[in-house]
């Protein structure tokens, strides 16, 4: 054991301007992440629209633990561990469905109400005089007590220790507001299914890359050159198919990405593209803009629609795009294995075209067949291999490092500043340290 009982060794892995390769390679650190880091931070579970009706459930694995989000009879949402109190069988093994008025374990028919309370056990008299009622097994399902539903986005903190929800996310929550407010009715629903990718790399590589504005020119050169070649010779004002509208901006230069600007917040969160982004120039939709003005007032409508950041990172499990209305969910599976999900949203009261944009973008950029993602995935997997080399155990994050950044939490800066990544690692070190105090 190199790290478990040596907090100073973990702290030494994150220097001001670089990080050690063990963050990506060490299986011991991954186990400690599951135990500490992913337990104390707030993780995205799912969207309320995935479970619209009482008895609906959505099950998933969160930091190695089986959990399920359940719609209650009174309309509330609760999140439980997906584990029978008796012997540990999962209560549901389908990803989603409706359980009716109660959960019934398929093994010995122990039943539970939707709120997790124990309902019935066969051969009840056999438990008379035993200690069942006084122990965990007699108390029904274990609920994740630290659950927060923010404008239908559901998050949990697995551990009792750690910051409160608002304290943890702070101002970055504005990125969810921006996405939801793009619905004139203030309501989103997931739609069109979820694209799932399995990548043989550490989860941090994916999350860093969401904030990496210097890679598109070289990483995506083949895709953008092909798009340019097919599109060249057309009049600048020729109507672009949606796919071209979405792919061509990937070829923007360093200057574009630098000037889009970025902002970091405490606890690893960030917004990239505070000034503009590759999503800023999608075709205008006059009817929709009118609906937005009617819903929000002219000034607020402009404010919402003009804000199209590239990516807003809800460290460490979620990345949000307000336009197109799409999110990516980061699910670390092992030190060298990561699941990425891409979800599309429909905005109530907005034209179907916005939903089509979300699906189209996810399909073009985040599908297992995406010509854009192929080169990203190749490079993530290549780094996972390359880091095993000797002679240099460090990953450089020096670009635009300024010692004064260490004293501040919210900083607005240029879009190519690696501060957006350094900020993630500083949060990582903070939540990996042993012995955090429990908070409400």
């Amino acid at each position, binding site marked *: 054991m190199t790290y478990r009982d040596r907090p100073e060794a973990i702290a030494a892995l994150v220097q001001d301007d670089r990080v050690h390769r063990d963050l990506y390679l060490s299986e011991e650190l991954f186990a400690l992440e599951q135990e500490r880091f992913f337990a104390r931070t707030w993780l995205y579970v799912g969207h309320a629209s995935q479970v619209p009706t009482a008895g609906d459930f959505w099950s998933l694995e969160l930091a190695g633990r089986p959990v399920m989000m359940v719609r209650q009879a009174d309309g509330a949402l609760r999140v439980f561990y997906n584990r029978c109190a008796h012997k540990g069988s999962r209560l549901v093994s389908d990803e989603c469905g409706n359980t009716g008025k109660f959960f019934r374990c398929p093994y010995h028919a122990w039943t539970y109400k939707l709120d997790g309370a124990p309902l019935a056990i066969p051969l009840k008299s056999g438990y008379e005089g035993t200690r069942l009622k006084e122990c965990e097994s007699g108390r029904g399902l274990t609920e994740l007590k630290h659950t927060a539903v923010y404008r239908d986005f559901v998050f949990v903190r697995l551990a009792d220790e750690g910051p409160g929800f608002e304290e943890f996310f702070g101002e970055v929550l504005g990125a969810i507001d921006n996405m939801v407010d793009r619905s004139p009715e203030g309501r989103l629903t997931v739609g*069109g*299914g*979820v*694209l*799932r*990718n*399995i*990548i*043989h790399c550490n989860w941090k590589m994916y999350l860093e890359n969401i904030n990496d504005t210097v890679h598109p020119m*070289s*990483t995506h*050169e*083949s*895709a953008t*050159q*092909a*798009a340019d*070649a*097919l599109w060249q010779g057309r009049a600048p004002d020729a109507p672009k*198919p949606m*796919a*071209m509208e979405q*792919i061509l901006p990937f070829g923007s230069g360093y200057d574009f990405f630098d000037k889009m600007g970025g902002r970091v917040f405490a606890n690893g969160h960030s917004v990239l593209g505070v000034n503009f982004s590759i999503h800023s120039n999608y075709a205008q939709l006059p009817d929709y803009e009118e609906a937005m003005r009617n819903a929000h007032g002219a000034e607020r409508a402009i404010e919402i629609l003009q804000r199209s950041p590239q990516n807003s990172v809800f460290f460490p499990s979620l990345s949000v795009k307000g336009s197109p209305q799409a999110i990516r969910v980061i699910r670390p599976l092992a030190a060298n294995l990561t*699941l990425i999900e891409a979800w*599309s949203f429909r905005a109530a009261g907005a034209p179907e075209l916005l939903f*089509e944009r979300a*699906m189209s973008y*996810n*399909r073009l950029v985040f*599908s*297992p*067949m995406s*010509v854009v*993602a*192929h*080169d990203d*995935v*190749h*490079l993530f997997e290549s780094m996972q291999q390359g880091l095993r080399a000797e002679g240099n155990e460090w990953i450089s994050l020096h670009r635009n490092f300024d010692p004064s950044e260490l004293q501040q939490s919210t900083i607005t800066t240029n879009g190519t500043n690696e501060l957006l990544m350094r900020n993630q690692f500083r949060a990582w070190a903070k939540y990996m340290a042993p012995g955090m105090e429990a908070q409400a």
Partner: protein
Amino acid sequence: MAPEDFIAAEAALLDAGRFDDWLALFAEDGHYWVPLQGAAQADPVSHNSIAYEDRLLLALRIERLKNPRAHSQHPASHSQHVLQRSRIEREDDGSGEVLLHTPFLYVESRGEQQLLLAGSLRHRLVRTVAGWAIRQKRVDLLNAGRALPAIQLFI
């Protein structure tokens, strides 16, 4: 050429890496479609797809593969389609269309990695003066909705 033979020849072009020749098999309005719900999916609009591409997007994919800086093609991917015999599901003399169903195994290898996919191809072919053309090639994967690694070539 019998439509069943056309299907076999189409897959052989892909496995030989002759992507320009393959693209030329598509009708002007032709589409390549890998639905996210596999065989259960009704249409490419109401639900998302792993791929839904017209000739322009297919051409983009093929142009990229020719670029020496298509990093994910170092080392290069190779494919092998293993097709069951195609079965004609419907023929429409009026439109000149024929629908074929072809169960398949698809292997894509790259370096040390090998990917195995299974499912059914559904071709909508249209008769032209030059022979058959693909109006739609639909690839219904068994596990389309589950996590997949990168699929770099054409199933």
